């Protein structure tokens, strides 16, 4: 059925057709018609206080639910303010559609007011992007944008729409199907390769499983758990893979890499087979590539052919959707009994058990005051390890990864690939909005929180009961740590001087604030915050000289970790 309407109305109709429940955005000159259409349609929209907040909120929404996040910004500065958020989503393969306004068709290229080449700027940080100059193209483009964003390896898609398109009247019809010649997402791969993978696992003496964000994205943690139940293989996670296996699962060795556990890093160095599932062998994991898993045959499961052999050479590749390959792998491995599997690797698991002993609590230095690691541990305990945890970037992020006992997939939202400070608060906002019944806890630092603290106002507007826990060490902690370790303690511009009263800041924005300075106040303050009905910011004063440990110095081998008390 054709309906005559404005391009702007058509955008809303497309959003409805795609099942979009809410959009995050910020109005401006060239999207006024679109905002008028939002108003008339009474479409759910969250006004953030900065476009960067809108895109991170859409990202947090997408990560928490698996649905496609949507944000809207105006042309020029509105669109450029999205860039960090788009790049963040791209690095972590988050399905996102960003709609931006563009100047009138005749004004494009003329340096018109609030004009920016959004297509050009976003090309290297999007899965795909569009500039819509003809209203007739709009429905097809919107359909393709959502399809591309959520299928295959997910990612952000930008739809830049000229104001002329939003203002034009046309006969709207939303296409039922998508036909893109150059894009057929890979689903089922080569079944023989899965069988070969199962055989390699059975033949290995010292196998390990390396869990990546792909397991989270494809919602295949149940299959992963089944694989481990059958085989008893030891497994560790990248930052993005945390939550796919429960932290207390005996086979789980925790996080691997620069701040990985002793057991995970040692087993990488000594394994003879490394099964990477939905991983991209990021440098924070591998450290020096030539010394990564030096004795191992590498089996790589991924949906993206370009990930194979990008960083690490794979001996066997299993290309395809994990929703296809993991169940098939489970079938193959179940031909051997769980006892047989365990017997085959008994010596190896014993060795790993030894490494696990060494790691426990080794990374805590003796400092006075509240230990930041304790804050994470206590929060983990008080939330029954069952909250949705969001972080910013820096020391607090690594401590969260190390000390929160994640139990479920999609329960840890963090900017892994891009490492975006300022991601946390808006992402928590998006997550809480999508999961009103869940406790959403944001761990952040006194550095990161300031990068998007304006979103406290949005959180207050919406009354979202986010628990914001700021580990205030009055320094840019990770920078400070590197300066302490590798730059002769020359703390170049890494102290925040402590003049900001974060409690007052929160209160000024309409969010309750608490400050904790003494260790004995900690638990009661956390309990109080968790039981408050609305949003609350808890500023916890922690020492400024605590290091994140263990740590593999940059460019070092994974088994050459700095452990607590050794520096």
């Amino acid at each position: 059925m054709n309906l005559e309407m404005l391009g702007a109305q058509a955008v809303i109709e497309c959003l409805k057709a795609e099942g979009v429940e809410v959009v995050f955005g910020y109005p401006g000159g060239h999207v006024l018609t679109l905002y008028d259409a939002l108003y008339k349609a009474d479409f759910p929209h969250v006004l953030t206080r900065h476009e960067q907040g809108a895109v991170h909120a859409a990202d947090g929404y997408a990560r928490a639910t698996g649905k496609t996040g949507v944000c809207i910004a105006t042309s020029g500065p509105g669109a450029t303010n999205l860039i960090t958020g788009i790049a963040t989503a791209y690095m972590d393969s988050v399905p996102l559609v960003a709609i931006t306004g563009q100047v009138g068709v005749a004004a494009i290229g003329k340096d018109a007011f609030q004009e920016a080449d959004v297509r050009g700027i976003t090309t290297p940080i999007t899965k795909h992007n569009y500039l819509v100059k003809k209203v007739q193209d709009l429905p097809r483009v919107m359909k393709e944008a959502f399809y591309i964003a959520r299928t295959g390896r997910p990612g952000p898609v930008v739809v830049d729409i000229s104001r002329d398109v939003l203002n034009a009247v046309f006969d709207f019809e939303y296409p039922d199907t998508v036909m893109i010649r150059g894009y057929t997402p890979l689903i089922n791969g080569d079944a023989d390769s899965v069988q070969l993978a199962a055989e390699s696992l059975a033949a290995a003496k010292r196998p390990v499983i390396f869990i990546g964000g792909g397991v989270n994205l494809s919602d295949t943690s149940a299959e992963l758990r089944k694989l481990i139940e059958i085989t008893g293989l030891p497994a560790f996670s990248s930052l993005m893979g945390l939550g796919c296996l429960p932290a207390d699962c005996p086979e789980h060795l925790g996080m691997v890499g620069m701040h990985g556990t002793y057991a995970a890093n040692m087993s990488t160095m000594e394994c003879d087979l490394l099964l990477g599932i939905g991983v991209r062998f990021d440098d924070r994991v591998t450290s020096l590539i030539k010394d990564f898993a030096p004795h191992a045959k590498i089996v790589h499961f991924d949906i993206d052919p370009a990930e194979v052999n990008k960083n690490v050479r794979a001996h066997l590749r299993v290309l395809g959707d994990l929703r296809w390959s993991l169940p098939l792998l489970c079938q193959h491995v179940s031909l051997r009994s769980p006892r047989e599997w365990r017997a085959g690797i008994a010596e190896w698991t014993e060795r790993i058990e030894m490494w696990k002993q060494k790691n426990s609590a080794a990374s805590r230095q003796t400092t006075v005051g509240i230990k930041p690691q304790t804050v994470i541990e206590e929060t983990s305990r008080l939330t029954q390890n069952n909250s949705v945890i969001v972080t910013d970037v820096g020391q607090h992020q690594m401590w969260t990864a190390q000390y929160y006992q994640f139990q479920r997939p999609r329960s840890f939202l963090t900017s892994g690939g891009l490492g975006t400070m300022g991601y946390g608060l808006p992402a928590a906002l998006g997550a809480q909005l999508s999961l009103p019944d869940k406790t959403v806890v944001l761990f952040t630092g006194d550095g990161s929180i300031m990068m998007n603290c304006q979103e406290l106002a949005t959180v207050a507007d919406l009354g979202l009961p986010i628990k914001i826990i700021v580990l205030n060490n009055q320094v840019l902690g990770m920078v400070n740590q590197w300066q302490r370790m590798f730059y002769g303690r020359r703390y170049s511009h890494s102290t925040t001087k402590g003049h900001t009263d974060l409690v007052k800041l929160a209160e000024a924005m309409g969010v309750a604030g608490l400050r904790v300075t003494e260790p004995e106040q900690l638990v009661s303050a956390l309990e109080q915050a968790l039981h408050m009905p609305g949003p609350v910011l808890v500023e916890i004063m922690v020492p400024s000289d605590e290091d994140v440990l263990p740590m593999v110095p940059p460019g070092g081998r994974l088994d050459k970790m700095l452990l607590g008390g050794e520096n």
Partner: protein
Amino acid sequence: MKYTLAVLVENRPGVLTHISGLISRRAFNIESIAAGYTEETDTTRITISVEVDNEVELEQVVNQLSKLIDVIKIVNLTYVEAIERELALIKVKASKTNRSDLVNVVEIFRAKIIDVNRETVAIELTGEESKIDAFCEVLLDFGIIEIVRTGKIALSRGPIPAKEM
């Protein structure tokens, strides 16, 4: 080693931005790139000549390019029988005294004089890169004023088109 790729892409605005954006972002070493219309109005064919150290690197180039939504198909023409051509237009100094020498050289290389005036001659030459290089080398003696060269284009021998390979 140098490889020649035939890249079939959608004939739409912005496609070249996507290709060049990817090449820049992934730091691929591209020697030349030539794009043009094909027998199908909705398809553009881009011939990319890429310099990589090994096959694994080449696989990355192909896989990354294939990920672009606009890219329909990539065929590696390096290992199939293929004809490769470049076109060069060269403006050379030519006085009365040496003009006939120049004409000789042009004939030897099967090039074509396409413009003449009192001081200069413009020459057109198609051929493989090495032939054009050799020709330019010889023309140095006459004094080259300017050279313009297209990137390489390539076509497989035999009846099967790249889109069906």
